[in-house]
């Protein structure tokens, strides 16, 4: 998978080690006494709420990590720790190798002005500013001139296909349109890291699907490092390079969508996967065999991003292995009809998966 | 700050140059004249202002509450007051004088009377035979009864701030206590409104009023109580069974006024308007419906013989 090829020598864009976030007056003391062994129940009895419990992970350049969990699972809190909207109780967070928690207020502002963008569930647009002014806001905050910021904002308006509505106020837009503004605003400063906090949760299912497609299209062009929070498991499967499933502040499992679906690590994760028709959510990329140059391919080529269901029938009708290609038409792997049968009808524990 | 320093320098220079005559001319600082909410007072304010201006003084007018104005004069925010009515403002006037800062600038010649009375038609229509003698009141309380007087006659008195319990004690002392009650109005407006309404209906009404006033034109008769003698009031140790004395109409000034504006003060101290003068001023506004400024201009033009002597 893309991961394997890109990671090794590089330093992660986001690196969290043993991050804790405890809410409550004597959170620090409680955490010290717990000695790294935090029991949510015991903390609650002492008047503390555990938001994030010992989270450690890395996100690499160009990767999209989706944090999935139900409400109260701590996923948004984790996101806010990494964007430092809330102060972390304990642990280390590094952004591009720099210690986020040690940054001064000024450094933090600089970091946000240049490296970070964030999209919010409730859109969080400024009600008194027009679409254009909202998008230009982060640029003006940086001190860019009105003329330049407006020109740049107009480009962003076009990017999210809102041309013609740049002088509307947020209240005059539909939810989907408002979130496009939110997305445009978060991208206006060309950030390296993109935080999205349940960006599509407040939208109607149809619009949500449309926005997800739009989002994938954008990411296809921009290749940002993304931390995406959602409570919608199928959304996580659709979008993620890797998924972190959270419950009660603990990351239950962090893995590729395919592994999550096919090999749930805990009972809690398995419950999510049970109802998921895997052929409808998994991409070819997640089940293909690594590239073997000795192999002979049939004439059919399938995209690595194709959902299994959409190509299953044609793959099954081929005798030879089918080549899997990336967006540029390069062959990146292969898939056999026999393998496809496993995926469609096989049992979890025997399924052979790639990645 | 710079302004006063500048003035200081100027002042020192001026004093050095012409030490003895420095006091001869009035200061250019404006003389602040208060305006209250009745016509004769406002017209007279503009009349006095006009007289000061004829002396070359600057004048400024400021609306002020009739009672609070004495404190303002004392502190120096207002320079003069030209209609200090004995019974209504006497208390505030003397309070301010006792604290210091306010001086008595003489008395107008106008003979004033502040007393309970009835509109002319009450006499003409013989609503209560025997009036204006007070004894007549004994026989016709019902003529002056109102909705809230429980069948008794009602005396409409000014606000309590004017003369406190003077009228209730007088009622009791005259033996009218079981036939009449006193109602305190909130202000002069309320009295005029009641008078106007009563006149339309030809109703009987007893109210506090004074002369000279605009009501003089339409006719207003003051009730003749037993004459005032020193010490007849309860506050002075008497039993209270007496009417009001002929009152004075005083002028007040801030204590610095004679020093800063000697010429204007000398004119102000000499100023003495008669009941006729005051009546004329009020009539220009109340009867002829002129604006207060216009009325003052007209009065000044028509009565140079009255006011010119004050300035000499």
């Amino acid at each position, binding site marked *: 998978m893309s991961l394997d090829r890109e990671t090794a020598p590089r330093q992660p864009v986001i690196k969290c080690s043993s991050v804790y976030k405890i809410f409550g007056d004597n959170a620090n003391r409680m955490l010290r006494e717990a000695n790294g062994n935090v029991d949510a129940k015991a903390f609650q009895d002492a008047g503390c709420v555990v938001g994030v419990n010992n989270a450690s992970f890395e996100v690499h350049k160009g990767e999209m990590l989706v944090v999935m969990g139900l409400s109260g699972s701590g996923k948004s809190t984790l996101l806010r720790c990494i964007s430092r909207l809330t102060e972390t109780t304990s642990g280390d967070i590094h952004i591009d190798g720099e210690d986020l928690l040690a940054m001064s207020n000024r450094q933090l*502002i*600089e970091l*946000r*002005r240049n490296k970070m963008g*964030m999209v919010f*569930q*409730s*859109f*969080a647009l*400024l*009600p*008194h500013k027009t679409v254009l002014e909202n998008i230009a806001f*982060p640029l003006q*905050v940086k001190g860019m001139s009105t003329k330049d910021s407006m020109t740049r904002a107009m480009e962003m308006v076009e990017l999210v296909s809102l041309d013609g509505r740049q*002088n509307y106020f947020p209240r005059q837009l539909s939810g989907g349109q408002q979130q496009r503004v*939110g997305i445009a*605003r*978060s991208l206006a*400063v060309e950030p390296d890291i993109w935080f999205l906090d349940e960006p599509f949760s407040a939208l109607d299912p149809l619009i949500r699907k449309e926005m997800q497609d739009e989002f994938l299209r954008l990411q296809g062009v921009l290749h940002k490092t993304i931390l995406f929070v959602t409570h919608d498991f199928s959304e996580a499967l659709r979008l993620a390079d890797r998924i972190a499933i959270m419950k009660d502040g603990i990351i239950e499992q962090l893995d590729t969508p395919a592994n999550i679906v096919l090999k749930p690590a805990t009972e809690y994760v398995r419950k999510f996967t049970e109802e998921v028709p895997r052929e409808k959510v998994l991409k070819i990329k997640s089940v293909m065999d690594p590239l073997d140059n000795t192999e002979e391919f049939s004439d059919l080529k399938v995209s690595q991003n194709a959902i299994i269901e959409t190509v299953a029938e044609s793959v099954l009708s081929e005798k030879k292995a089918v080549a899997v290609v990336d967006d540029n038409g390069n062959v990146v792997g292969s898939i056999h009809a026999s393998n496809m049968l496993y995926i469609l009808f096989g049992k979890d524990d025997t399924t052979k998966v790639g990645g | 700050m710079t*302004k*006063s320093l*500048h003035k200081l320098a100027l*002042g020192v220079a001026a*004093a050095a140059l012409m030490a003895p005559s420095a006091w001869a001319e009035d*200061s*250019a600082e404006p003389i602040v004249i208060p*305006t209250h*909410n009745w*016509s004769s007072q406002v017209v007279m304010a503009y009349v006095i202002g006009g007289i000061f201006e004829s002396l*070359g003084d*600057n004048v400024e007018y*400021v*609306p*002020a*509450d009739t*009672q*609070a104005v004495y*404190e*303002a004069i004392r502190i120096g*925010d207002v320079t003069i007051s030209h209609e200090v009515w004995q019974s209504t*403002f006497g*208390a505030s006037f003397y309070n301010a004088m006792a604290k210091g800062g306010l001086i008595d600038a003489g008395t107008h010649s106008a003979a004033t009377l502040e007393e309970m009375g009835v509109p002319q038609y009450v006499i003409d229509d013989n609503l209560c035979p025997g009036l204006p003698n007070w004894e007549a009141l004994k026989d016709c309380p019902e003529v002056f009864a109102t*909705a*809230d007087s429980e069948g008794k006659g009602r005396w409409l008195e000014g*606000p309590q*701030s004017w003369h406190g319990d003077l009228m209730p004690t007088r009622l009791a002392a005259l033996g009218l206590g079981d036939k009449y009650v006193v*109602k305190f*109005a*909130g*202000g002069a*407006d*309320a009295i*005029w*409104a*009641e008078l*106007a*309404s009563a006149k339309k209906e030809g109703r009987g009404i007893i109210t506090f009023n004074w002369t000279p006033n605009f009501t003089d034109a339409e006719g207003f008769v003051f009730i003749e109580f037993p004459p005032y003698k020193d010490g007849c009031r309860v506050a002075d140790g008497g039993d209270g069974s007496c009417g009001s004395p002929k009152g004075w109409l005083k002028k007040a000034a801030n204590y*610095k006024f004679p*020093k800063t504006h000697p010429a204007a003060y000398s004119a102000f101290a000499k100023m003495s308007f008669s009941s006729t003068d005051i009546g004329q001023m009020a009539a220009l506004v109340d009867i002829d419906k002129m*604006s207060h400024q216009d009325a003052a201009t007209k009065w000044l033009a028509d009565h140079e013989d009255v006011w010119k002597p004050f300035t000499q």
Partner: protein
Amino acid sequence: MGYLKKHPRLAQFTLLLIAFFLLVAVVTPSETNVLWRLPSLLAPLPGEINAFAEHLMFDWFPVQVYDSELKEYEQSALLREVTRGFSRSVLFLIEFIREILVGGVKTIVAFTGWQFIRENPWAMWPALPWTVVISGAMILGYTLSGRGLALLAGLALAYISIFGQWHPAMETLSFVLVAAPISIFLGLILGVSAYKSRVVAATLKPLLNIAQTMPHFSYLVPVTVFFGVGDHAGAIATIIFATPPMIRLTLLGLQNVPVEVVEAGMMCGSSDRQILLKVLVPTARRDILIGVNQVIMQCLAMAVIASFIGAKGLGFNLLLALNQLRIGQALELGICIVLIAVVLDKLSLAWANKQTDYFADLSFVERNKHSLLFLAVFAICVVLAFLGSVIFKGGINYLYLIPHNKGITTEWFWQAGVDWMIDSWYSSLQGFNRGLIVNVLQPMKNAYLGMPVSATFLLVMGVGYIVGGIRSALIVGGFLLFIALTEWWDRALITMYMASFAVIVSVTIGLIVGSVAAQNSLASKVALLVCDTLQTFPSFIYLIPVIMLFGVTDTSVLIAVIIYATIPATRYTIEGIRSVPPSLREAGMMSGATGLQRWISIDLPLAFPHIMLGVNQTVIFALFMVIIGAMIGTDDLGQYILKALSDKQGIGNGLMLGLCVAFIGLAVDHLIHTWAAERKALLGLT
């Protein structure tokens, strides 16, 4: 009994009432009986407050001040010089704006001196011709919003000019243009600091409560002592009165800004200042603009009262007109006040909502076309004014300034209306008046005065306990205790009697009118517009016709109070019912409820918490107006507040009496808020 068990509150209230009447029956009226009346332990307090204020003002920290007129040093006090300095700067601002509008010499004097004016009689700032001001206002309205606002501004100012009220109106305007921005600015700053600091918020809260419930008359004397008389004193009193709602609404607006919006601002890399100025304040703008609207309304509502302490303009002329019983003239002046309020309100709103077009590539002329237009109009109007001085003889140049009372007037019409009203209604109303006084008002007043103080405490604290537990009981008890320990307990009882009668009637009227109007959006709009108008329309004007009809009686006072206090009752009922979720009303209709059933079982209960806030406002409005009713003639706290204007210890008495009124209001406010909050929680309307 079963019924009482099901409704424990009802049982508690019944018990409370029984105990109350027992006390009323048992306690004997006697001045020495503490169950009947408490001793006035606080009686010396006003004197002490007074002595303290005077000490601060005249003796504390003596300084030598040079009197340039007398050419000698004089002893003064530091505070006095400080407050006088402040007064002078406020006055300078007012005079400056005023002289731009109507001309004068004060601004020149401020930079030179009176001697300069005396020596240079030419040195006088000319007035702007009224035509310039009107065109300016129209162009401004057009620039900010469009044709509608331009028309409104033009018509309103033309009315003022044509009716000959230009000069006083501009005097009032100049003082509002100073008082309103200062109030808005102070309100914003204090609101923001209360938002940022819990300590500031906790300190401000009681002060705000008192400032909003204390009758304005009671702080007129302190203001004159500290700041003198004149336009500046009027402006300062107005600022004291108009700032609290601005603070309150700023704080409310900031607290309602969604967390995510602030986070979005932070993620854009905003500094703390940028967060405050570019995110928080603009996002809270809806509430802040309501605050601005309130400030403008309050400033013009103070126009009349400010003239008691020296503010020139419409308010003073209105009092003069009333004193001459010229109702028509007073009415025209009152309309001018309302018009100024409306135009200022709309202009400020349009300014706040103004949009910029960033991509219109405009030339200099296009970008500045409105300013250029104004310059052109300015030139034309000035030329016209010069021509006018040639055309018009008799010293009045109608193209320059239409002098006071030289415009057209409809006075005779209103006068005839008032005359007709008295001629045709007076006698028929006498029966009603007498019946009301004899059968309702006097028994009610006597009942209030016949309450032993112990019974009053039992009743009020009991209600407090039932509504909000021991804490509420102690709070309302505390408020009451303060009043009971002054010498004015009986006066306060009379104030309570008048306020409670007026509140009952106002709320009844408000509920009915409001409910009817709320059925239809057009009717609601009209009713709200009437409420707005009545709120700025000076209440003094209707005092006179009411006295003519009902005499100097409690009926007159109560009618004036009810007219004023019905405004919030109606407004909040409309707003409350209009905000009932339509789905619930539809559910009601689908279950076959008739209009009346729906009103009783859906509209009223759901709108109840909001309506209760309206009742709360009604109480406060009623208390305010009962105090102003002292101008008709009452024997309650208001009469004593008026009297304090001439008292030796006016500061102390005024403030203490004001506090008594404020505490009555705050006790009721506390009970209603606690109750409404509980109801709200029950209905799940947080």
